[in-house]
């Protein structure tokens, strides 16, 4: 179903993602990025709705997003909301707000600093608190369960996983925001020892501090702000069971369903930005989206090049939008994931005109 209102991404900005930015608070880290997109559209006075994505578990305090609102400014008063999810879902909420006619423009941002804690351990706090949480499974070993299931089923090989890592990090050499760029050869990657069998270090995403901001606008507001707005042709998000032991971990049907609802199959796409933190997950996302060989996947380097939690999904939308606005892509798809093992998934189809 086509959206009732045409809404586009008209401005994006992101941090230079780093392993640790100890000298910056969350507010200090994200404020320049918010400033950059607001300057592109005339300031916060132009924004009808603000929505952010972040996590108290990473910030280390309850209602931490309230502190970060300092980065938007104390005046004028704003209408705002927040999701304890990746910023891609904050963008979805803002898009709904505009669809409902309650806003014409929106500021969306998300960020996190994983560096103060032990991310693979913190991630376990997002799991089922009865059956999984008390075991404190680290997120790398959890991802290894999924990779093993794929290797056992023959839906991926260690060589393919290394090729995915190599391709993403090679592409990242052209991304000034990337944290990890460049890669040894596939043969060299495969010669490395196991980090968490069946995963080698190259199969893992980096741990990142960083953030991203986006401005959305409807109709003529978008055309006034951008020579070539990246129109959201469809957006949808779906979820698979949190009961990982009852899932076929080699698939993520929620991705295919979200893609269907977002109208991905309506026309071919030139590029895809996939939020696949672990190398093997790219194969699942790509398969569920039904992407052909002609699609350029992750020209930014994807989450294997920089993986700021709560931001890496919205960054995928920003990367597709940037290429459409620059005229180097006509139509693209962005995917975002939340939770572990590709549990929650959002698909956004963007197009120039």
């Amino acid at each position, binding site marked *: 179903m086509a959206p009732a209102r045409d809404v586009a991404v008209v401005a994006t900005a992101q*941090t*230079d993602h*780093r*392993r*640790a*930015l*100890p*000298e*910056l608070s969350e507010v200090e*880290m994200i404020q320049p990025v918010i400033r950059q997109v607001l300057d592109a559209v005339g300031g916060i006075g132009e924004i009808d709705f603000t929505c952010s994505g972040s996590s108290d*578990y990473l910030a*280390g*305090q309850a209602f931490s997003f309230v502190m970060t609102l300092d980065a938007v400014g104390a005046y004028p008063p704003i209408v705002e909301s927040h999701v304890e999810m990746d910023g891609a879902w904050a963008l979805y909420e803002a898009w709904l707000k505009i669809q409902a006619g309650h806003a014409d423009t929106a500021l969306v941002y998300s960020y996190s600093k994983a560096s*103060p804690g*032990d991310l*693979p*351990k913190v991630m376990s*706090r997002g799991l089922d*608190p*009865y*059956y*999984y949480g*008390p*075991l*404190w*499974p*680290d997120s*790398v*070993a*959890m*991802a*290894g*369960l*999924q*990779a*093993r*299931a794929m290797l*056992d089923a023959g839906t991926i090989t260690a060589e393919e996983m290394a090729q995915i890592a190599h391709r993403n990090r090679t592409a990242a050499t052209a991304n000034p925001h990337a944290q990890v760029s460049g890669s040894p050869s596939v043969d060299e990657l495969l010669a490395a020892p*196991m*980090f*968490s*069998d*069946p*995963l080698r270090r190259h199969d893992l995403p980096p741990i990142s501090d960083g953030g991203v901001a986006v401005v959305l606008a409807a109709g003529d507001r978008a055309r006034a702000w951008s020579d070539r707005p990246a129109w959201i042709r469809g957006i949808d998000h779906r979820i698979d*069971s949190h*009961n*990982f*032991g*009852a*899932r076929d*971990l080699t698939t993520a049907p929620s991705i295919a369903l979200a893609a269907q609802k977002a109208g991905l199959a309506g026309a071919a796409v030139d590029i895809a930005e996939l939020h696949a933190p672990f190398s093997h997950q790219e194969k699942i996302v790509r398969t569920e989206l039904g992407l052909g060989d002609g699609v350029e996947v992750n020209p930014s380097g994807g989450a294997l090049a920089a993986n700021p939690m709560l931001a890496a999904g919205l960054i995928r939308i920003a990367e597709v939008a940037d290429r459409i606005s620059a005229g180097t892509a006509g139509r693209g798809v962005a995917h975002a994931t939340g939770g572990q093992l590709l549990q929650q998934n959002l698909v956004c189809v963007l197009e120039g005109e």
Partner: protein
Amino acid sequence: MNDAQGGAELLHAPLVIEYGFMRTTGPVIGAFLTGLREQRVLGIRGADGRVVCPPAEYDPTTGAPLSDMVEVGAEGTVTSWSWVAEPREDEPLSTPHALALIRLDGADTSMLHVIDVPGPDSVRTGARVRIRWAEEPEGLITDIACFELLEA
């Protein structure tokens, strides 16, 4: 944005975060955890007749409410695993071990837990394992201390 600006020393201090919630477990999860205290493992029959273990209150596929609890075995089969070379504090085993999905005999879904094995060469998908019970049960998933390999 470099990690250190102008060589100034950054001050660090520990921050301990606790979310001190008590959780009620309800009729399904509560029955499962109570069973563990008595060294019994319960699953629940799903809408399609499959036995889900650990039991879910709602069918993982259809969302239908479930209530037919059935006992499953204390032995099972490894359906996937990964290697934890450097265990962190709070994990069930302090020595290197396998994190695994294990389908208990009589169940059709897998349980997440750990296997006490000396190295990654000792475990494989399809391996047979059994529960090693904790010495002092508390009505928690950790009443299963870990799994161990059944002798071939």
